[in-house]
């Protein structure tokens, strides 16, 4: 929690020095060549092509590449907020450290391998890691810091049940290198309880009951005490089951917070500001992205940045310089109109997108795109657990798109939207054109795509020249 370098106020001076560089194997050189080739043939920038190749040729090469990083690696995992948190940490560290960072969200072992291959002179590895891939990535990279944000039900078809994932995380935490720093979200009962495995942890959380919901949301998953099974009592529930909880039977409760947000002010769709309270002092942070969930992301980024040696000033400056991560509340100008892209991928995350949208003028037109590829989750039942009903107030037209457009249309139909207000347009391109056609000049078309639909939409606007392809976009 208190490492000597940071207290002296330095940044990264005297960071743990890793083993001297090992010779690069032929496999690594080959995989690097594949990245260039993939880009040349236009196969999507080769985000994971070289990593997949390397992973196949020589899995141990990932360990060796990581071991070459002089300042080690930091890992970020969570159901929601991985990409944004990692982008925030990158912003905090980037002025002083060269990073290997999987910024486009390719977060399996192969994505980490690709980022390692691409950043040849990197000093520090900064990786968002898929929840289920965390045990393997941690075992191979031997990280010096790990940030664990939240666990919500997400892609049960792929991850299995939440409990199982939480158990694997616990085992991973137990096996971390002795000197590694653990950063956890204390507001999540399952995640917060991991501090019991590692007394030297940094705990972050929200401390502003004015923003608590009136009751636990439908998407609250960890409602029962992790120790004894009794229902938690919440002094404040912020997002899903995240909040200030206490078990009335065995008194298990939210751990003490080291890094907190107080005096949170939400400014509609534009921004949010809060007091960042740390053991080193308090700073007001003006964040250029909206919503309570981004306060959680910023807290995770601040706590991890701090664990990696960043000063409070660097943390504040990094957070304030941050703009939206890839496809997460991203505004893309399209001629006289714009496209506002808000990724949705599970009930808890989508609820926050809805809540944030409603802090502005409720949209009259929505493009929602539901795909069911592996990265989206093949089981689409989760859309029925999202609280979409509050959107219906102002909604005049829904364009339902993606491979499961009809299922999505049913979700809105049974929520009470008249069938006449629903257009089913499975093709993303046709749906985008239709949406833009219905959008007045100067207005934004609000699009809520699942992961692969988001990539598809971005690809479409990139091909039309409105945004850089993602492998060229800066974090």
């Amino acid at each position: 929690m208190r490492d000597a370098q940071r207290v002296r106020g330095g940044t990264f001076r005297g960071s743990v020095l890793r083993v001297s560089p090992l010779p690069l194997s032929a496999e690594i050189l080959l995989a690097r060549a594949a990245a260039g080739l993939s880009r040349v043939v236009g196969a999507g920038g080769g985000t994971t092509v070289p990593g997949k190749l390397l992973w196949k040729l020589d899995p141990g090469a990932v360990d060796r590449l990581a071991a070459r990083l002089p300042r080690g690696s930091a890992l970020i995992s969570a159901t929601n907020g991985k990409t944004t948190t990692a982008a925030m940490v990158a912003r905090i560290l980037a002025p002083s450290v060269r990073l290997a960072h999987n910024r486009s969200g390719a977060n399996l072992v192969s994505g980490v391998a690709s980022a390692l291959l691409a950043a040849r002179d990197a000093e520090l590895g900064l990786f968002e890691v898929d929840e289920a891939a965390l045990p393997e990535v941690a075992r191979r990279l031997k990280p010096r810091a790990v940030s664990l944000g939240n666990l919500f039900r997400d892609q049960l078809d792929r991850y299995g049940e939440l409990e199982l994932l939480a158990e694997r995380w616990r085992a991973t935490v137990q096996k971390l290198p002795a000197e590694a720093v653990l950063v956890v979200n204390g507001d999540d009962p399952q995640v917060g309880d991991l501090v019991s495995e590692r007394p030297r942890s940094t705990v972050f959380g929200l401390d502003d009951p004015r923003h608590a919901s009136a009751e636990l949301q439908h998407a609250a998953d960890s409602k029962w005490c992790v120790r004894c099974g009794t229902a938690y009592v919440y002094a404040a529930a912020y997002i899903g089951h995240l909040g200030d909880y206490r078990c009335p039977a065995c008194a298990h409760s939210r751990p003490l917070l080291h890094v907190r947000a107080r005096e949170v002010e939400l400014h509609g769709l534009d921004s949010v500001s809060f007091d960042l309270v740390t053991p080193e002092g308090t700073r007001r942070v003006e964040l250029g992205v909206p919503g309570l969930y981004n306060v959680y992301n910023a807290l995770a980024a601040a706590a991890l940045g701090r664990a990696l040696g960043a000063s409070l000033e660097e943390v504040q400056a990094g957070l304030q310089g941050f703009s939206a991560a890839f496809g997460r509340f991203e505004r893309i100008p399209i001629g006289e109109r714009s496209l506002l892209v808000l990724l949705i991928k599970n009930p808890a995350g989508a609820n926050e997108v809805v809540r944030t949208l409603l802090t502005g003028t409720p949209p009259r037109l929505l493009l929602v795109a539901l795909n069911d590829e592996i990265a989206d989750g093949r089981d689409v039942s989760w859309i029925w657990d999202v609280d979409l009903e509050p959107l219906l107030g102002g909604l005049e037209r829904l364009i339902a798109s993606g491979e499961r457009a009809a299922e999505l249309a049913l979700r809105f139909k049974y929520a009470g939207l008249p069938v006449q207000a629903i257009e089913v347009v499975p093709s993303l391109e046709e749906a985008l054109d239709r949406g833009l056609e219905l959008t007045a000049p100067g207005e934004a078309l609000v699009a809520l795509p699942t992961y692969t639909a988001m990539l598809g939409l971005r690809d479409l606007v990139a091909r039309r020249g409105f945004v850089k392809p993602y492998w060229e976009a800066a974090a």
Partner: protein
Amino acid sequence: MKIVVGHLFPDYLNIYADRGNIAVLERRAAWRGHDLEVRALEPGDGLEAGEHDLYYVGGGQDREQELIAPALAAMGEALKAAVTGGAAALAVCGGYQLFGHFYRDRSGDELPGAGLLPLHTVAGERRMIGDVLLECEFEPGHPRRTLAGFENHAGRTYLDEGAVPLGRVLAGFGNDGVSGHEGCRAGRVIGTYLHGPLLPRNPWLADWLLAQALAHRTGDSTQLAPLEDELEAEAHAVSAGRARSRGGRF
């Protein structure tokens, strides 16, 4: 006419969008001019004879199922009496397992069941996950109908000798991955692993349940007016296609 649905333990068993099933029952009743009231049933609640026309129980994660199994089992006799009195029931996934005789987990411990369906479930190693398509024949001579959904279960469910499955598996795993059967039907009680949720893309089953519930309420068999189900049919077709192209099998 007002239909009353008893929703069993919604705080514990609601993992696979079970409220989607409830929403479909509510809307499809309302579109025919019937009120439908959902009453949550909590552990320890008594059941008044004839109060509910339809019972619904959803799925939960292992932990929630463990927490709630004894309460559901304790309600077993009262539920049986209600069903004998003409009420219908739909149990999905975890609720389906707990409607049987028992559920045996991997360490050999048994969770008690409510005993409404003639079956038992044993936890297996590999989860059965994927899209499923079934063919059902509720009444001999009537045209066969299909159900499309998604399954995700480690439990292998075994029907008692002579018990009737809900349907024949056209694609996907089903009860145990080998029998070719999915779900179970005992009179007006239906259990199935299919979620997705089940009813939006399979409206004929929602209407069948509503018809049973109305018959219980009125004492007469009721004909439900047909509805415009174009979106439902499209969603069903996509889901059925998914099962055919990528449904699971051992």
